């Protein structure tokens, strides 16, 4: 039988099946939105890793700015050791917050946090979060990078995409019905976003001395949030490279064996 012909057919069918699958993912491209800024992330591609220094700075930005409104429910303080912080540093960070607990007599108390505690929420519950923020609760950021089309580029775009009212064109103001009190963001669907511009130049003073420009802060905090969304990315990439190499060798070996077995039948 002809391997060549059947292989061609196989490739065609595979391409068809994959085409079908890709369709699902490109489904939601909004028409009149500007393209997202394309950042060269350290964690991109099959050999990507998280830039630890950037992620640590990003944690500082989260802690000093974002955490006032946004929770990070799925993270524990102990996770921070994965970013290169020492156990003692993590203990100190955890002990800095008071977490609600119940004492031996069943009374609600507050105690200093421990590494085994979840990140403290800024609001006790979603209703309180909504009430304190004009009716809409700020989303939890634990998996935000995986929960938005465009991923890290989208979050980076939102953080850097604010345009002040006086810089808007009259057409933009008219088309999107923007008033002076609105926050205009280039990359937000509908452009009027409830969150006021969170980051700006020198919003934080980095402990490592890096100059705190807006793009620097944004890319740092996105690196941190990308890690928060997918903490096992590095292990996944490493395992993946090994698995694929193994399978390639295995496929070669099996093909040779198959050829040898079929030698008298072709």
């Amino acid at each position, binding site marked *: 039988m002809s391997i060549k012909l059947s292989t061609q057919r196989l490739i065609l069918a595979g391409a068809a099946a994959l085409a079908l699958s890709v369709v699902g993912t490109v489904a939601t491209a909004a028409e009149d939105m500007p393209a997202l800024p394309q950042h060269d992330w350290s964690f991109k591609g099959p050999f990507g890793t998280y830039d630890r220094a950037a992620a640590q700075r990003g944690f500082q930005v989260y802690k000093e700015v974002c955490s006032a409104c946004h929770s990070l429910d799925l993270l*524990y303080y102990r996770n921070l050791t994965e970013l290169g912080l020492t156990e003692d540093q993590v203990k100190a960070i955890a002990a800095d917050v008071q977490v609600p607990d119940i004492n031996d007599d069943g009374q609600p108390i507050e105690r200093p946090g421990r590494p085994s505690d979840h990140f403290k929420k800024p609001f006790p519950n979603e209703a309180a979060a909504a009430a304190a923020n004009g009716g809409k609760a700020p989303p939890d950021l634990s998996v935000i990078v995986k929960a938005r089309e465009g991923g890290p580029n989208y979050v980076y775009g939102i953080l850097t995409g604010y345009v002040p009212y006086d810089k808007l064109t009259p057409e933009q103001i008219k088309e999107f019905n923007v008033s002076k009190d609105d926050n205009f963001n280039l990359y937000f669907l509908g452009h009027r976003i409830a969150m006021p511009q969170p980051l700006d130049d020198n919003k934080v003073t980095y402990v490592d001395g890096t100059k705190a420009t807006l793009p620097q802060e944004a890319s740092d905090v996105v690196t941190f949030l990308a890690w928060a969304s997918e903490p096992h990315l590095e292990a996944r990439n490493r395992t993946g490279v090994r698995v694929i190499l193994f399978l390639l060798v295995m496929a070669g*070996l099996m093909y040779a*064996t198959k050829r*040898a077995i*079929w030698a008298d039948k072709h």
Partner: protein
Amino acid sequence: MASSSIPAGAHGDPTRRDFLMVATGAMGAVGAIAVAWPFINNLNPAADTLALSSIEVDVKAIAVGQAITVKWRGKPVFIRHRTKEEITEAEDVKLSELPDPETDNARVTDLAKKVRPEWLIVVGVCTHLGCVPLGNKPGDPRGEYGGWFCPCHGSQYDTSGRIRKGPAPKNLAVPGYLFTTDTLVRIG
């Protein structure tokens, strides 16, 4: 396996073919083991469970003669602040009288090898069949030896948590612990 049913010489060079079959089989076996590992590993304790595998207890508030129970790795741990008499009683017992000979000193030494006779820390699980012995709360029966009494089958422990009478074969287990300060102890 396969070659038995195929006439010799039917498939080109049989040596090469057999070698390939064996190599493929061996590699397949390696692959199968590698695949099995994540499935087995998956059932190990998760990171959040492990994060709670050591606890810190403040023992400042425990008066002499009192004891508290804390939960550690899903089991009760007894922390008793022993009186002078209890300590002497525990130290004076002859090892030959004990079913599970162990000195009191060895049972009140923390991981830094520091001996604190006033603090006895034991896992509150009877070594017979896993019940929780009585004797930690003020009104509890403490048995003939002033330690703990297991209501299930009547095992009696002394003031060092050592088995003295009854069906239990071993002393109450001492968990690894470390006094980080004079009043703060980390268990596990």
